[in-house]
C-alpha cells in the first residue's frame, strides 16, 4: 500500500480549474519531484497535500488515513517554503523549536532535538542568530532544520532552491539528496528546474495545465518520453525536434522524409506502438548527445551558430537547413567556427512523435 495517495484530486479557484484530476501514489521513503512550467499547478498540488489549500474534489490519504479535509497540523507533514518563511523575530534555535514549543515539548528534549538537527545540517554555530544575519544557504538550512526536527511523515519542498545563486543551488541540491539518504523520509519536491528534477528524484511527475503528463523514474522519462511536451521539458540541453513526414510505414521500420535531412529519405528502426500510415506528419526527436559529427555518412547537415566550450565537452548550437534550432553535445573539444556547415548523423533509436505529439515508441 502506498504511503501518500492522491486520488483524482481537483482544485477550483472560482471558475478556473487549476488541478483537473490528478492521481499520484508515493511509496514510503520515496523522493517524488513535481516538475512543470510555471502555472502548471505543481505548487497548488503541493499546498493541497499540506492542507494550505482546500481540495475541491478527490481524496488525499497519508499513511492510510484520509486527510483530504484535515487541518494542516494533523497531517504530520513539514514544508520548506521558497521564501524559507523563517520567523524574522526569532533566532535559529527558536525557529527550529517553534513547533515543539507550541506543543509544549519538555525543554530538555527540545534542546537535544534542535541540536541534533543543527548537527545534521551543520548550523550549530548559527543557532543564536536571527534569520537576517544568515546567508541564503544558511537560511535554507535553518528552514530544513525546522522541518526535520518534527520528524514528519512527509517533507514538502516548494521550489526551495530558486532563490539561491547557481553554485549554492548545486551544493544545496547535493545536500538535500544526502539528507534524503540520511533520514530516508518521504519527500515531495516542487521545481520548475528539470536539472533538479532529474538529479534528485526517485520518480518525476511532469505536470502541465493541471494534469499529469507522465510519471516515472528520471531515466524512464528521459529515455521514453510519452509526448512532445515531456520530451522537450526534460533534458538539458533540450531535445531537437525536427518535423518530418512518413513515406512508408511499417511495424519494424519507418521511412521518413525530413526537410532538414541530407538525403531524400531516412530509415528509422522500430519498434513502434502502432501502425503508421504513409503521409502522416511526425516529429523526429534527437537528444543532443546522440548526434555525432559524421562526414562519411551524414543524415543531416546543420549550420553552426555558436559553440560553447565547457572544458570537458562542447555544446554546438546550430540550425538545420529548414531553420530548426538544434543543439549537439560533443564529448570532445570541437573547434568549429560559426557559419561552418557540419555533417551529422544520429545513433540509436531516435524519438518519433505522431501528429498529436504522442510518442510512437512503445
Amino acid at each position, binding site marked *: 500500500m502506498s504511503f501518500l495517495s492522491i486520488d483524482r484530486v481537483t482544485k477550483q479557484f472560482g471558475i478556473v480549474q487549476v488541478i483537473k484530476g490528478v492521481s499520484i501514489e508515493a511509496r514510503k521513503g520515496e523522493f517524488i519531484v513535481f516538475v512543470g512550467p510555471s502555472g502548471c499547478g505543481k505548487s497548488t498540488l503541493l499546498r493541497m497535500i*499540506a492542507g*494550505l489549500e482546500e481540495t475541491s474534489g478527490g481524496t488525499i490519504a497519508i499513511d492510510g488515513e484520509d486527510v483530504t479535509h484535515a487541518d494542516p*497540523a494533523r497531517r504530520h*507533514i513539514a514544508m520548506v*517554503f521558497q521564501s524559507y518563511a523563517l*520567523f*524574522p*523575530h526569532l533566532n535559529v534555535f527558536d525557529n527550529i523549536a517553534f513547533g515543539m514549543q507550541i506543543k509544549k515539548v519538555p525543554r530538555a528534549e527540545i534542546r537535544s532535538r534542535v541540536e541534533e538537527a543543527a548537527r545534521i545540517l551543520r548550523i550549530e554555530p548559527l543557532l543564536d542568530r536571527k534569520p537576517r544575519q544568515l546567508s541564503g544557504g544558511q537560511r535554507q538550512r535553518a528552514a530544513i532544520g*525546522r522541518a526535520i526536527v518534527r520528524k514528519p511523515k512527509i517533507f514538502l519542498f516548494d521550489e526551495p532552491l530558486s532563490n539561491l545563486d547557481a553554485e549554492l543551488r548545486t551544493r544545496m541540491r547535493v545536500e538535500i539528496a544526502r539528507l534524503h539518504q540520511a533520514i530516508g523520509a518521504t519527500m515531495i519536491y516542487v521545481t520548475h528546474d528539470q536539472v533538479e528534477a532529474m538529479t534528485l528524484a526517485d520518480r518525476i511527475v511532469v505536470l502541465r495545465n493541471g494534469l499529469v503528463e507522465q510519471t516515472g523514474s528520471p531515466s524512464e522519462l528521459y529515455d521514453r518520453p510519452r509526448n512532445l511536451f515531456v520530451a522537450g521539458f526534460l533534458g538539458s540541453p533540450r531535445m531537437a525536434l525536427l518535423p518530418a513526414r512518413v513515406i512508408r510505414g511499417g511495424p519494424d521500420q519507418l521511412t521518413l522524409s525530413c526537410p532538414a535531412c541530407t538525403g531524400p529519405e531516412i530509415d528509422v528502426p522500430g519498434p513502434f506502438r502502432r501502425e503508421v500510415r504513409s503521409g502522416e506528419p511526425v516529429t523526429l526527436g534527437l537528444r543532443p548527445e546522440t548526434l555525432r559529427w559524421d562526414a562519411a555518412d551524414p543524415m543531416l547537415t546543420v549550420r553552426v551558430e555558436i559553440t560553447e566550450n565547457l572544458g570537458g565537452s562542447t555544446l554546438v548550437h546550430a540550425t538545420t537547413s529548414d531553420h530548426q534550432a538544434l543543439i549537439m553535445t560533443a564529448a570532445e573539444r570541437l573547434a568549429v567556427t560559426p557559419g561552418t556547415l557540419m555533417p551529422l548523423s544520429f545513433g540509436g533509436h531516435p524519438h518519433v512523435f505522431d501528429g498529436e505529439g504522442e510518442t510512437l515508441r512503445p
Partner: protein
Amino acid sequence: MTKLSPQAFLGYAILALFVVLSLLPLWMSLKIGLSYPTDVFGDAERLGMTSLTFGNVLRVMGLPSDIQLTAFRAAPIDFTVALRNSLIYTVLTVTGQIFFSALAGYAFARMRFPGRDLLFFAFLAAAMIPGIVLFIPNFILVKDLGLLNTFAGMVAPTILMTPFAVFFLRQFFMTAPKELDEAARLEGASAFQIFWRVALPIQKGPIATLAILLTINSWNDFFWPFLVGRDPDVRVMAVALADFISQTGRGTPDWTGLMAAVTLSTIPVLVMLVVFGRQIVESLQTSGMK
C-alpha cells in the same frame, strides 16, 4: 572639520530657528515654574533664569513647600494624583486599543469570514464621523451604565478599538508574508498563537509607532475626560490643569504653580519620545530590508 557650504549653513540656520521656536514655550514654562511667584512679573521680559526654586513643583505635587500662596480659595489640587491618573488612563487606552485593534486588523487582513469587507468598510465609515458628534451619545451611555467618574467610563470609547488603529495595523498585517502564517499553521499553531507569536511580534515597528501616536493623543485628551472624569480620584493632568486655572481669581492666575504643573505634565511624554524615538527610526530603516 569639514566646512559648511553656504547653502548648508543657511539650512542649519533655518532649522536652528525652528528649534528655538519650538523649544521656547517649553523653556518659558520651565523658567516660570522654577521662579518665585514674586519674581514672575518683575522679570517677565528676561529669557534667562532670575531665581531658582523647586517650591512650586513641590507645592503642586502636594508636598511641603516653602512657597505658600495666600489667595487660595479652594482645596489645593494634587498633581501627583493627576499624574498617576493620566498614566493609568494612557496605559489603559493605549495597550487596550493596540491589542484589540491588532486582533481586529489581523482578522480583517488575514481571516476569511462572511461579511468581512462589508464590516471593514463600516469601520472605515465610522472613522469619518467627527469625534465631537459622539460625545453626547457616549456620555449618556456611560452615565446610564453608572460609569461616570470611573476609569472604566473614561476609557470606554477607545479601549476596545478605534477605526484608525484598526486600519493602520490591517495595512501592515496585509503586507507581511503569508508564508509565515502558513509555516506556523503547519507547525500546529492555533489562529491565536499565529497572531500572538508570529504576526504581532514582526509588527513591532509599526506597533511602536502607533503606540507613540496614541500615547501623545491620550495624554493630551481633554474634552472626554473633562466630561466623565471630574472626580479628583480619576481626574487626569489636562483636566486638573484646567481646574487649576479656574480655581484662582480672574486676571490673577497662579502662574508659577500652573507652569510647574505644565512642566510636570510634559515630562512623561518627553521621556517616552527619547526612549521610543530611536525605535521609530530603526523600524523605518529595517522595514526596507528583506
